[in-house]
């Protein structure tokens, strides 16, 4: 390989990359908040006693889990404005698509945790005269959250990576900025490597933390 690496062209572009990084982080964080909150609600719906709540919730989950994220994003950007005759700014739209996708995945993650709450706890709630929402919020949620955290965080990392897809519908996130710099400067190798490293640096610490957490939970279970 005889290629002269040259990172000088980046000098004037750091501001652009920083702006892109901010958009990426914003997309990832807000989608994660949406996914964590709505995911729990959706999970409760799929466990509901009523067919008319359970069935659409299950369909929602399966549809988001069985179609490509890219297609979901493109669908939201093209079809939502046409169907509902609204204009939503690109970042909000990206959050909407990514957040709903994450909601479906998180609902599955919560489900095992909710089902693992022992029957006796629910009986105890009745005996203590807790209202249904109190039972859900103070008894079920904390226990479900605790066992679901590793999977929820892994889902969170994958949404950070999937957020790169909004570049395809021209939202100026890190990937998009990187792509345009690479094209302008004729330096794909340096730019794409740099962008890949930034994504890697963002997700590696969280992935390591998840591994540590899983080891701890395994150890707690073995005891």
């Amino acid at each position, binding site marked *: *390989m*005889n*290629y002269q690496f040259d990172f000088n062209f980046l000098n004037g572009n750091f501001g652009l990359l920083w702006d892109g990084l901010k958009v990426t982080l914003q997309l990832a964080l807000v989608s994660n908040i949406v996914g964590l909150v709505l995911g729990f609600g959706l999970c409760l719906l799929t466990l509901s006693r009523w067919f008319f709540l359970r069935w659409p919730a299950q369909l929602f989950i*399966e*549809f988001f*889990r*069985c*179609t*490509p*994220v*890219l*297609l*979901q994003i*493109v*669908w939201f950007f*093209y*079809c939502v404005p*046409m*169907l509902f*005759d609204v204009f939503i700014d690109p970042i909000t739209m990206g959050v909407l698509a990514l957040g709903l996708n994450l909601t479906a995945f998180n609902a599955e993650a919560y489900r095992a945790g909710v089902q693992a709450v022992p029957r006796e706890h629910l009986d105890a709630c009745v005996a203590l005269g807790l209202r249904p929402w109190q039972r859900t919020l103070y008894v079920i949620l904390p226990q479900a959250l605790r066992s679901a955290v590793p999977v929820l965080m892994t889902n969170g*990392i994958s949404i950070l*990576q*999937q*957020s*790169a*897809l909004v*570049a*395809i519908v021209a939202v100026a996130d890190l*990937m998009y900025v*990187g*792509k345009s710099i*690479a094209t302008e400067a004729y330096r*794909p*190798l340096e730019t*794409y*490597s740099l*962008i*890949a490293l930034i*994504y*890697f640096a963002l*997700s*590696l610490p969280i*992935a390591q933390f998840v591994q540590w957490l899983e080891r701890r939970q395994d150890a707690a279970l073995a005891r």
Partner: protein
Amino acid sequence: MNLDFTVVFSYWQALLQGLALTLAFTVGCAILGSLCGFLLSLLRASRSRWLSVPAGLYVELFRGTPLLIQLFWVFFCFPVVFGIDVPPYVSVLLALTLYMTAITSETFRGALKSIPGEQHDACVALGLASWNKTIFVVFPQALLRGIPPLLSNVVSLFKESALISSVGIADLMFVGQNISNSTARPVEFLSAVAVIYFLVAFPLTRLVGVIETRMLRRYAY
């Protein structure tokens, strides 16, 4: 606005061709990636640090970066780095295989871990050579236990393969987007493409559950 889903049917041939290409890439990369993934998981489990650390780094790197970047990297940077002209189909195949290798190696690692230590001891007691142990004892069991998660990996590869449309490969996603642009009917065509993806992926995810409950209970435990 008025929606007319009947127009979708007049383009069924183009959509079917796109689906065929998507499936071809998925199956090809799934097979190549699973084989390489198994080898990589062996390297990761190796006692030598010179083998296990680079293998671990490879997996972390490919799991920690978006597939879109990996795709662009292979597509735009391989020709620059190696000074050769790589045809688009090959570079896409390469990118998806590299990604699948990293993903499946994690699956196999979990499966390898689940093989009890007694089996390794038995192999030593029987005096099996280490490659014999790998091929006849470890690999069949790892494969059997790995089948359900491997199938889920294939389903996610099937979904992720929609990304290859962004470098101009005429897969289902690309065909759907092209038709929706040229006919100015995004709602109908994008929804139809979504339904096609769903119809392929959903039965596969159900199959994962069936295999998990039926087959594994009978053969693996």
